[in-house]
């Protein structure tokens, strides 16, 4: 099947095209209805394969010029269809970073990235409530130096699919451009990157298999009648005080106590053990287009607020340069809403100087179901 782009020049041509569409039952993509065809305006028509010859001959006969917009519709469909996990090929170079991936695919990806790069090592972080293994990737240039660390986690909320997609993209970008980009090499001379592609693994899987808009983890409460704690309300930072619910049926249920969830504890343990070396804590969410600074649990500004804001504003400006996307910068409690027990607040409270929450695209048009064709621009600008 092909899609043809035609701009009819005269009313006569328009009539002929309308006739062609209705007699051959062609699939009109633009405009929506045959009667809306106008001379001088774009037409996109999908022609089924067996009719292609006939249609083109008819167009030639009537001196109507056309361009082929899509040479093979099936090919395009196949390319954009999410891959079945069973047929996923093994080579990392073939990994499609502009598609959303299942957790199984992400596990395979992490193992292969590690095997194929000297810079990357995969590390055990902990186990989820459903007993799945959590891994983070360490990107580190071999050296004797004791380097400072930047930590980034994605996918703390299951439905925010663009977030794990960004973590994967980030790793790819660093590795692909390490050789050619002196900035990246310089960066890695002094810093190690710790990347957790999916924090809430059980929730992420649940959003693929069962409920696309699931947010929390999958811990069981209330005698087995209710699932899920909001992991971003479960950290020990003014836990349970504001912007939370004590009821499991709420999406912002903060859990039975601070760090009650194994996923939270896994992250806490690692970060605590390295906290004197961690310079920056980043946690990636969607949607809203914000770069958020501490705190959510109080409007009292953090001690290094000026510096935090300055860095964030510089980042937002750089981000906007790429595609014009605007991100708002400010403290969570002031520009978004109050919440306690967030990982961002906790990181700053234990002494990590730079702690940011990124809320990626968009501003509500698609919200959580951001189309895969926005993965690339979102990731490129955020990079």
């Amino acid at each position, binding site marked *: 099947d092909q899609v043809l782009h035609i701009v009819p020049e005269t009313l006569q041509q328009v009539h002929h095209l309308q006739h062609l569409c209705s007699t051959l039952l062609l699939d009109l993509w633009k*405009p929506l209805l045959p009667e809306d065809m106008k001379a001088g305006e774009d037409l996109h028509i999908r022609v089924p394969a067996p009719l292609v010859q006939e249609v083109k001959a008819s167009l030639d006969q009537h001196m109507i010029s056309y361009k082929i917009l899509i040479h093979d519709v099936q090919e395009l469909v196949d390319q954009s269809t999410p891959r079945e996990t069973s047929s996923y090929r093994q080579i990392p170079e073939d990994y499609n970073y502009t598609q959303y991936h299942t957790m199984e695919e992400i596990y395979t990806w992490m193992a292969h990235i590690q095997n194929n790069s000297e810079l990357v090592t995969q590390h055990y972080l902990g186990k989820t409530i459903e007993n799945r293994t959590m891994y983070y990737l360490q990107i580190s240039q071999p050296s004797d130096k004791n380097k400072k660390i930047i930590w980034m986690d994605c996918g703390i909320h299951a439905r925010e699919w663009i977030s794990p997609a960004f973590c994967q993209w980030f790793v790819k970008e660093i590795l692909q451009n390490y050789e050619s980009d002196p900035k990246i090499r310089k960066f890695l001379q002094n810093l190690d990157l710790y990347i957790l592609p999916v924090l809430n693994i059980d929730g992420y899987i649940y959003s693929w298999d069962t409920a696309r*808009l699931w947010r929390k983890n999958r811990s069981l409460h209330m005698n087995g009648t209710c699932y899920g704690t909001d992991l971003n309300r479960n950290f020990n930072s003014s836990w349970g005080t504001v912007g939370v619910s004590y009821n499991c049926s*709420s999406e*912002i249920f903060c859990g039975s106590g601070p760090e009650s969830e194994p996923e939270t504890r896994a992250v806490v343990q690692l970060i605590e053990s390295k906290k004197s070396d961690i310079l920056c804590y980043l946690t990636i969410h969607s949607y809203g287009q914000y770069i958020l600074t501490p705190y959510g649990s109080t409007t009292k500004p953090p001690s290094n607020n000026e510096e935090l804001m300055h860095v964030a504003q510089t980042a937002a400006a750089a981000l906007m340069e790429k595609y014009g996307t605007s991100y708002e910068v400010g403290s969570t409690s002031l520009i978004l809403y109050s919440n306690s027990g967030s990982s961002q607040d906790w990181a700053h409270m234990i002494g990590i100087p730079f702690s940011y929450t990124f809320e990626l695209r968009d501003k509500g*048009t698609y919200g959580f*179901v*951001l*189309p895969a064709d*926005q993965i690339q621009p979102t990731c490129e600008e955020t990079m």
Partner: protein
Amino acid sequence: IPEVGVKYYLRFATTYYRSGQEAGSCFATVLYLKKSLPEVFIKCAHSQDQKQIQEEDSRFYRYLRHQTKPIIANDIPDSHGNIEHGLLPVWALAIVGSSYVMLEKSTENTGYFLAQIRAAKQWIRKDSAVEFEFIILLHETPTQEIDLCHMHLIWIFGHPLTVKYICTSENHRLDDGSGQESGSAAGTLHEKGGNF
């Protein structure tokens, strides 16, 4: 305003839903009263001219009226954010309809976005109206809840939509009961934008 409520004065720019292109600016006042629905006054300047907007609305309307078999669909957009080309007008209709629901449900402290259309079903009518039944999912902030609403709408071209709805949160708590939005009050709020 002591004893009465809180009044907000707003000046904001609008953009087209899908393209993000500028669509004009508006001035509005919202008075949140203690015991009844807020009072809203709004005035907008459209960047596109009214005739063009009418024409696009008309095309949109005729496409939906043109269907000989009722459109029935689920999950718009799908999990990966995709929307079938032929369903874009259905998405657009749901956006307009859900905006009435969201307007009525929102308060000084809760806001909404349309997260997804779970189901859409068209009813073909003998008269000239367009009729659809939807199940829509609304993302509520700051609670982060997903509210499920049954929305029934009727559109007669040139008139504001008639929208009836009933919402529950996905946790099956029945909230607020049903409501109806139609007629004159909605007249000033009726968005006539095409270009979704």
